[in-house]
């Protein structure tokens, strides 16, 4: 029964079973289930349920981390099939990276996982990303949104520079900018001229969807 297979995937993601989840994905694909359904009814349903448990104070960061790891592991066997079927829900790109001088990628990884589950094509530039790499990625990929992350009160000031460079190169009006990370705030996002601030991974996903009008 497909429903049972999807539910097993949901459970594996929610429980953070990063070995079981890809095995179940493989089984579902071998059983001929459509990759898009496996994604939506299994993997995405699992990560969204995790988000609900987080929002309800029933799950805490360790649970979310394990679920995100299971999500990433599940996506590995699924990704090639999704690319074949052009399955991305919104077809919107999201360029994300941690600003220069900062190598903390925990939050960025969670945000990327949530965005991916929400149907964005995520282009992850990684950590310690200088402004010119953000600019280059915006030119190359023409994303709907660029997301800047920082963990330190010193490095978050780099975000101003990236946004200023987008302005200077005439790109700012073509792309929405989101900022996030432990030391950031709505006030800071307003100050640097970002379009949105992601308080946490779930919030970032919701705000990203709002920005593209989904």
């Amino acid at each position, binding site marked *: 029964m497909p429903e049972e297979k999807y539910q097993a995937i949901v459970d594996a993601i929610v429980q*953070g079973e990063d070995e079981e989840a890809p095995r179940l994905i493989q089984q579902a694909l071998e059983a001929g289930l459509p990759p898009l359904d496996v994604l939506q009814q299994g993997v995405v349903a699992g990560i969204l349920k995790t988000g609900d448990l987080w*929002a309800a*104070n029933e799950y*805490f*960061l*360790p649970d979310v*981390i*394990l679920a*995100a*790891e299971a999500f990433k592991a599940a996506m590995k066997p699924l990704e090639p099939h999704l690319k074949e079927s052009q399955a991305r829900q919104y077809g919107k790109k999201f360029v994300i990276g941690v600003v*220069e*001088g*900062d*190598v*903390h*990628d*925990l939050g960025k990884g969670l945000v990327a996982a949530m965005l991916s589950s929400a149907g964005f094509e995520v282009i992850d530039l*990684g*950590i*310690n990303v200088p402004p010119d790499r953000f600019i280059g990625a915006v030119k190359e990929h023409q994303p709907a949104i660029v997301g800047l992350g920082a963990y*330190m*009160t*010193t*490095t978050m*000031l780099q975000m101003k520079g990236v946004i200023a460079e987008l302005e200077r190169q005439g790109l700012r009006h073509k792309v929405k900018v989101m900022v996030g990370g432990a*030391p*950031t*705030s709505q*006030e*800071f996002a307003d100050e640097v001229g970002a379009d949105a601030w992601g*308080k*946490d991974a779930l919030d970032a996903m919701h705000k990203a969807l709002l920005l593209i009008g989904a």
Partner: protein
Amino acid sequence: MAHQTLELIQGILYGNGLRVGRLSPTGRVFATLMGQHGDTVPFMGPQIHDHAMTVARVPARKYYWEAELLVNVQIAVERWYGFDTYTIIPDAYNFEVEALGAKFIYSDNAMPTVDTNEPLIKEPGDLDKIGPLDPSKGRIPMAVEVARLSCEKASGPFAMGFFCSPFSLLCQAMGYPKAVRALRRERAFAQELFEWAENQAIFPFLKAQSEQPGVKQSSGADAWAAFPNLTPEMVDEWVVPSAMRLRERGKKELGLTVMAGLAAADYCEEDPAKFDKQIMFKCWAIARKLFIMDVALSAMGRTQDWPMEWLQEFAVANGKGRRKLPVYASLNGRFMRDSTPEQIVDKIRQWIDILGRDGRLLFFIANVPADTPPAHIHTAVHAVHTLGRYPIAGDLSTIEIAPPVFQPFDEWLKGQPEADVIFKAREAGAAPRTFTG
């Protein structure tokens, strides 16, 4: 030392009703912690390293490498603001793993930061290959000198060395996801990790500190173990026993008071809609086990939105005799940066009204962001010392807090004991630092 002893005695007497003479800042803190209250609510020196560097305009590549500069900058900036104690801490989470060979990123404007994308510990077998920590490696000699200078220059009961507590050290060495996975899924490995952190990484660092004159205590920050990074149950199961082992070993073998796990179980939920009284109480109860003094502690959380009546209720319920626990009321760093001075004063007025009327209240800021406007800090210190004057006014809204007048830092610094070191550091600039352990 005699001076400090007198301050201590005066503080205790003052706090217990014998209100004679003018209290020193240190005496004010003792009066609050060991009695009912002092002359006014004290404001403890915050963790301020990035902000102090920014205010003093010294290059990061010197500041985070030179003990004398770092200590002088933090003492000067904290005195400029008028805090009642000094807190002198560099980038406390980095030293052990850096000396053990972890990859770091060094920059001109920020503290060194570990790159956990290339972690020191990738698999269990790595534990046999790393360590023990050699106290001559990396910036450990600088850290040991910071401990010595802190105890010499700041002196008193709040001067101490520092280290990175075991769980946070593991996060630095292998990344938080892998560390938390070990706690949840690989218990035997997690046990090995804690033993490695305590005995191979931290203890040699503590030993080097204990050999310095005047260093009698050392505190270990553990922000990675704050809630919701770890649940209170996980902190109780892993962090508390580890802290007790380090405390016991430090006392027995080094004659050093070791306080590990500081900020573990600190309630850092960001969403006010999710604030949970039961979890908060659990967190505060666990923090009591870890802090060397018995206090109701807030630190890094989104405290501006907390119902402070809960913290007061906890402090009263867990007090001894007719006295509540002393309350550390910590203004959130981002709140300090992003709010207007008026909003800061209103928050302080509200907290003193709720938490301060029966005494035993201390203000604090867990970590002052680099770009916080100095006027905000000056305003906060001025407001706490004015609104917190005992007896607390019946109606605090009638007390006007005018914007404090303060000299710009550079003007104030001229003639201060720290001036030469700071001005020279600016002139000298900084040579590139590239070593990795």
